[in-house]
């Protein structure tokens, strides 16, 4: 009986010891350096896109914004870029996979901050915002239209036409349907291939130039989507200023411990580094296949695609006469890329569920458990190692991730 009482007391002490709030220690200077590398203040100026001559032209951004939200840019007149990239959801859609005319191949990633990425898509199969913007237009499962239809929408709208010509000069006249066949969706297919090959080389080039220009104005708009400050940024500012009171007002102990794990034991900054919390590179983290689908080969396939994309940096439709395309020219290929996908930004991560390239993971807690386990990859090899975090540490990391949200009304796109 006495023995039992001792056990109960010991258990109670252990429980108290385990659950007591331990105040986090102060940040060291080296840690503050790391923290400051992660905040928005450290975000460099937008990298120039010499392949897009109108990238920084506000008139292009204005036209691009209108086209981004225009559902006429689709085979059924009902799907725009914003169908999947919804501003209120931080330009994602809350679905496992994008839903356009059909179901798209992967989870819809956010567009915010992608101007900083050398690669677009989970598998990096495009190398600029403008070449990326062209691809959903002709994807049978997304907007499902074709480049001639896109040119016709722009040419057929008086105000688009004026805005376009203001930037690029005259539009090609595509009214002659014998010369420019009128093929309606869904997307590219045998009908389209036949129509396209019936056109003269010169006409094909002029349609491609106009089509590329549409991508370039949409990219000019997308370049303006930069993340706004979050509570995390405010906290780090308070840390740098040595303002303890502000720090305590901004972050609770769990969030502080979470941040310590983030830059320390959990090693998140290996990939989620820099102010956008992504290195925009390709990694295999051993995520399970999407049910009913083969394991995704990711970048191994994406890199082959970007190298032959006619709208890539080295192609005929870029505006840079010097073809400064270091990313494409020195791109890594090979079997090491099997099963790798691009690191997504963690900004607004709480609001952009579900996670991973096929939306396989529903919650942040589940995503963290996955990284904690670091299971062997189905294809390729998982670069991550098991973290050995306990459940409290996982909760703390989750609390930290929830501080990375920018209030929607602080984004410049709140009026959309």
């Amino acid at each position, binding site marked *: 009986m006495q023995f039992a009482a001792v056990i109960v007391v010991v258990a109670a002490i252990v429980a108290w010891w385990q659950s007591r709030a331990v105040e986090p220690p102060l940040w060291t200077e*080296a*840690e503050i*350096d*790391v923290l400051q590398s992660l905040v928005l203040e450290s975000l460099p100026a937008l990298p120039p896109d010499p392949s897009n001559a109108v990238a920084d032209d506000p008139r292009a951004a204005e036209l691009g914004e209108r086209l981004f939200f225009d559902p006429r840019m689709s085979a059924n007149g009902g799907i725009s870029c914003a169908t999947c990239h919804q501003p209120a959801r931080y330009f994602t859609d809350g679905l496992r996979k994008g839903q356009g005319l059909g179901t798209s191949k992967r989870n819809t990633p956010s567009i915010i901050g992608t101007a900083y990425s*050398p690669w677009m898509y989970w598998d990096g199969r495009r190398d600029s915002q403008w070449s990326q913007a062209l691809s959903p237009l002709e994807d049978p499962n997304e907007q499902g239209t074709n480049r001639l239809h896109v040119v016709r929408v722009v040419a057929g709208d008086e105000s688009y036409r004026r805005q376009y010509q203001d930037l690029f000069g005259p539009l090609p006249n595509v009214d002659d349907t014998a010369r420019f066949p009128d093929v309606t969706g869904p997307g590219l297919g045998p009908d389209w291939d036949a129509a396209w090959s019936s056109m003269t080389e010169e006409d094909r080039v002029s349609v491609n130039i106009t089509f590329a220009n549409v991508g370039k104005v949409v990219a000019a708009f997308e370049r303006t989507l930069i993340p706004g400050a979050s509570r995390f940024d405010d906290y780090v500012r308070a840390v740098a200023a040595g303002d303890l009171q502000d720090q305590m007002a901004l972050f609770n102990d769990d969030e502080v411990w979470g941040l310590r794990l983030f*830059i*320390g*034991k*959990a*090693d998140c*900054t*290996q*990939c989620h*580094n*820099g102010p956008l919390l992504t*290195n*925009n*590179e*390709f990694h295999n983290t*051993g995520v*399970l*296949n999407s*049910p*009913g*689908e*083969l*394991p995704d*080969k990711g970048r*191994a*396939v994406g890199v082959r695609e970007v190298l032959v994309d006619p709208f890539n940096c080295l192609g005929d439709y870029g505006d840079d006469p010097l073809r400064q395309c*270091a*990313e494409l*020219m*020195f*791109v*890594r*290929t090979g*079997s*090491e*890329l*099997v*099963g790798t996908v691009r690191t997504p930004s963690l900004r607004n991560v709480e609001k952009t569920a579900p996670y991973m390239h096929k939306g396989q993971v529903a919650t942040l807690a589940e995503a963290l458990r996955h990284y904690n386990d*670091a*299971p*062997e990859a*189905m*294809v*390729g*090899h998982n*670069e991550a*190692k*098991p*973290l*050995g975090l306990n459940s409290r540490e996982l909760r703390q990391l989750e609390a930290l991730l929830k501080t990375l949200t920018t209030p929607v009304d602080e984004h410049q796109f709140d009026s959309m």
Partner: protein
Amino acid sequence: MFAICIISGVVPQIAAAHGGVVQEDDLCIIKVDYLRAHFKVYQPRISGHEQFCEDLPAASESVFVMEYQHDALGSMPIDFRIIRDVTGKGRFARLEDVERIDDLDSVTVFYQAAVTEPDVFSVIYEFSEEGDFIGIVSAIRPDTNKVYAAVFPFEVGFTGVGYWPFFIVVLLLLQLQYLLMSGRLKRWMGGRSPGVIACLCVCTLLLTPEDSTLADEDGLRVTYTSPSGVPEINRIHSWILHVESADGLPVENAEIEISGGMPEHDHGLPTQPRVTEEIGNGNYRLDGMRFHMRGYWEITVTVVTEEGSSVVVIPLQL
């Protein structure tokens, strides 16, 4: 129809071929004749990341993966067939037994027509019933049209107890490998935690010399200069490499190959940097350098001259 053509056209030629699935050390290997691949099967809906070699626990969605150990498989059309085992030979069924089946299609439950998969071969099939099955993988050599095959009998809804001791040994080996691979054993035995290592990396970053690192082997010296001082993270940039001999003379007209990566993370560089220009006086322009995370990197510079080749490893703590 295509399936029938392939089989009827192909089977007579593979009479001489042999192969199957075997357990070698800890690894499940499929031998398509002399061509080997790491073979694994998943039932993700019911057992997540758990790997199986042949027998599968239940009738469920199954993903068969072959990771090539011979690159040649990446350029060969491979087809994959699963049949119900009607040979009566159970797990001793061989290719000859399969060839004796008159109507292969009538017992086929899954067929993937020949495709060339450059990176990794995988198929997915949902078994609707438990039972004995035979997998048949054939790879066709494009130049000679010779067909190589592997045949592996397996059971779905595997309940046999006779193999339990074997499985326990395998599991123990896997666990040991996991402990060794994950470094847990080392840590448990008193190593440093990754958190400490990461922190050390960050600290050393601040101590890294600003512009160059010297390394030497066989007397050859390679110095690098990064225009922005410390190599930046997440930005593609160029280096100038200076190569000189042991007696300090510039090495000219050398062929230079670059490789590298993070040994601790078991991955290479995110780009494929190349020397694009020999500037003269032993200086070479190296384009396409990029680092995507902090930590310990190694850049291996192979310098080939008329006198021979030297390898210099530049350690980098970012």
